[in-house]
């Protein structure tokens, strides 16, 4: 059993719920134990960095400090969201590179009774852990329903392979990790030329025409290669390509219909999990036709609502199976 500290990030509980559901469903197969960092906060995405430097880094560093406190011999923090992964890695890297930043951030953390020593944690993306710790041979050995005949465009987006402070990826612009994983699942993987190009990020909210053009390029390329689905490793990429596909089509008078799934969803299908547990049906561009083509029935509507839990603090994060002793 591989143990990791886990930083889910805000999207996993909202826009990327399908990512979270499918990840939770495959953890036992992968023999991964994720201990969620207690009371983690938002990483600030790409917004806080552009407002105020020290508060932005202090916001990120609170998570690192909490993780280090909870470590219990586990020093690897796994993030599933690309922006969260980069922000955590960035804070750890720059606090190590620039002493003045380190001093100021720790000064701020001290106001909350916390501290963080750069370099004491290893920040990694979920895909990296699956490829390099679990290994493709192990993944292959767990496949019971190969995704034979499903043409997949592997899409990594920007912030996982770049800037890559610790040189973890095979290439900054054309890394092959996701391709190899999807091939191990039996899928037909296209050599997607735009696999690390930008989805537009927050431009959908700020300069829609800029974002729509970047989304269009990705959809057009995937369509040219006759991809049945595009697979992402990032909540923001999934959101932009899925939720804004309709508006992009309207803007350019195009008619693309490319379902955008998380890689964990396809892993779940290949591992023989029930698609209902894998967050299928939450995508706005429906994936059921593409999945039917390989004989997989997926729901088109979201699963029935869970009874609402009423708490003054709002809904709690879903509990991780086999959470390890992080209770204070």
């Amino acid at each position: 059993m591989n143990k990791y500290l886990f930083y889910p990030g805000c999207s996993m509980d909202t826009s990327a719920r399908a990512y979270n559901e499918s990840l939770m469903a495959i953890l036992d197969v992968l023999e991964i134990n994720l201990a969620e960092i207690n009371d983690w906060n938002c990483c600030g995405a790409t917004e806080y960095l552009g407002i105020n430097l020290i508060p932005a880094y202090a916001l990120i560093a609170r998570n690192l400090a909490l993780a280090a406190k909870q470590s219990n011999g586990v020093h690897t923090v796994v993030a599933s969201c690309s922006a969260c992964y980069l922000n955590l890695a960035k804070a750890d890297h720059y606090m190590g590179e620039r002493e003045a930043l380190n001093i100021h951030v720790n000064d701020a953390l001290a106001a909350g009774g916390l501290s963080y020593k750069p370099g004491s944690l290893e920040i990694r993306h979920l895909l990296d852990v699956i490829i390099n710790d679990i290994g493709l041979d192990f993944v292959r050995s767990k496949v019971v329903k190969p995704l034979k005949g499903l043409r997949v465009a592997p899409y990594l987006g920007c912030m996982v392979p770049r800037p890559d402070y610790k040189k973890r990826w095979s290439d900054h612009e054309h890394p092959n990790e996701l391709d190899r994983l999807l091939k191990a699942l039996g899928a037909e993987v296209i050599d997607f030329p735009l696999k690390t190009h930008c989805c537009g990020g927050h431009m959908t909210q700020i300069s829609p025409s800029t974002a729509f053009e970047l989304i269009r390029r990705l959809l057009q390329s995937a369509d040219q290669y006759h991809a049945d689905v595009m697979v992402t490793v990032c909540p923001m990429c999934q959101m932009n390509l899925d939720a804004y596909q309709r508006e992009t089509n309207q803007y350019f008078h195009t008619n693309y219909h490319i379902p955008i799934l998380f890689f964990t969803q396809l892993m779940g299908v290949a591992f023989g999990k029930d698609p209902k547990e894998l967050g299928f049906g939450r995508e706005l561009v429906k994936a059921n036709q593409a999945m039917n083509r390989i004989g997989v029935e997926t729901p088109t509507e979201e699963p029935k609502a869970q009874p609402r839990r009423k708490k003054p603090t709002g809904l709690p994060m879903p509990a991780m199976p086999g959470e390890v002793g992080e209770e204070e």
Partner: protein
Amino acid sequence: MTTLAHKFNDTDPNVRFLEEVSERTAGVSRLEMCIQCGTCGGSCPSAADMDHTPRMLFALIRAGMREEALSSNTPWICVSCYHCVVRCPQDVHIADVMYTLKSMAIQAKLYKDSTAPDFSQTFVDMVETYGRSYEFGLATRHYLKHFPLRMPSMAPMGLGMLTKKRMDITPKRIEGIEQLKAILARAKQLEVVS
């Protein structure tokens, strides 16, 4: 020694602009190392919408043209894709310099269009209040102010996100919000890295 004396006696803040930008950037910016090769602009997916390519912007900074540089839309159009960063032959931390320029433009109130700064500020307000991002609140506030006419075409998407439980109407608050507020309050007193 004349040049050195000139540097220290000059009260024109523009003289030290390059130094200031570099100093306020996380990590070691290496902005001084730029050789004006233009690889950044050539790699940029959103350069077409920018007032200046990154290379031109860096030339403005080196020339001490503070107002022009801080009122350029370039940092606001940067999508943080890091293509330029990995291709830069001089390893300039370009994306981080863009963040620095945004924060300096906000302080100097030199941005031309408030859409992007408002979005960032609203996002940050939500995070400072709850400790988590709050998309529903953010989207509502932002669209009402900046894109009211876009709302009808957005409606099916927003509704889809709500019915598919991909957006919560109520925000989530972390338990340690007071701790976080104390950390951020202290951080705000420590603005510039030196």
